[in-house]
């Protein structure tokens, strides 16, 4: 049973890999350029199907964008120049990873701020707990008096 499930899963994964774009007809002759193209596809957003990279997307526009990437690489562009070329047309949205800059700094720093805030809160809480514990009148005098008062009330002693 478990083996069958594993086989089915493997089959599904292979099918997924076979369906994934870009197709073999898009492969570049120069293996080094192909590797750079692949890396770039993964960093560029498909502007129609926005949560996918153009590497993942089967949309015709994604195929067109991949063609542009290859064309720019063949024209001798650096990776940064290829990205700048598309950024010039589609803006920062075309990058899967938002660049660190003025209008995105809050986005990048927010998790750190939350983490630091949580850390400080825990620290303050723990230190406060320790202080009440330490400062508590554990000389026993107060406790004895209170205990006596309580037991008197209930008429025990």
């Amino acid at each position, binding site marked *: 049973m478990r083996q069958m499930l594993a086989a089915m899963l493997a089959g599904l994964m292979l099918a997924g890999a076979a369906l994934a774009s870009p197709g073999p007809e898009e492969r570049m002759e120069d293996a080094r350029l192909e590797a750079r193209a692949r890396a770039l596809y993964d960093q560029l957003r498909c*502007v*129609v199907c*926005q949560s996918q990279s153009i590497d993942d997307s089967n949309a*015709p*526009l994604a195929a*067109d*964008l991949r063609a*542009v990437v290859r064309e720019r690489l063949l024209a001798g562009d650096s990776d940064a120049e290829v990205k700048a070329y598309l950024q*010039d*047309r*589609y*803006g920062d*949205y075309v990058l899967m990873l938002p660049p660190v800059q003025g209008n995105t700094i809050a986005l990048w720093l927010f998790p750190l701020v939350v983490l630091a805030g949580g850390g400080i809160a825990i620290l303050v809480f723990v230190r406060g707990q320790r202080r009440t514990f330490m400062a508590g009148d554990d000389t026993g005098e107060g406790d004895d008096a209170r205990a006596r008062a309580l037991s008197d009330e209930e008429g025990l002693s």
Partner: protein
Amino acid sequence: MNRLFLFLPLALFAVMAAYFALGLRENPGEIPSQLIDRELPAFDLPPIQGHETGLASADLAGEVSLLNVFGSWCPPCAIEHPMLMQISRSGVVPVYGIDWKDPPGAGTRWLERNGNPYVRIGNDAEGRVAIDLGITGAPETFIIDRAGRVRYRHVGVITEDVWEGTLLPLVEHLQAEDMP
């Protein structure tokens, strides 16, 4: 003092809820155009099958104009089409078209069937001009001023409301503008 401190999470929650509520009103799918107030990228497209003239960016200079990107394969374009016909008939502003990624002859047949609102049409079979324009889907419509700069982009169907409420007032405003 310490008691008030207990309300901190509630206050934080309120702030975040308000922030997210505002965020819900936005449309994150709409990618802002990079072309606003920039010159229309230069292009020179061939005509579609059966037409004499294509469309070059230079054709749009000197007059406020509408540039509409469409395709016969695009269902919303068919919904938008009667509105474009109406705008064209009104004569308020010339409408230019870019036939985006249509197989040969498909655009021509589509226009024969539905009417042709365009003064001139360029055939962008490979979709390269569309990428230069930052197109994310069809239909998209640009308003170009007399100096040939892009002043507005509308993503999606031009409805009666969009035309009356947004595009027409802007066109009239730009037409009244002095030639820069």
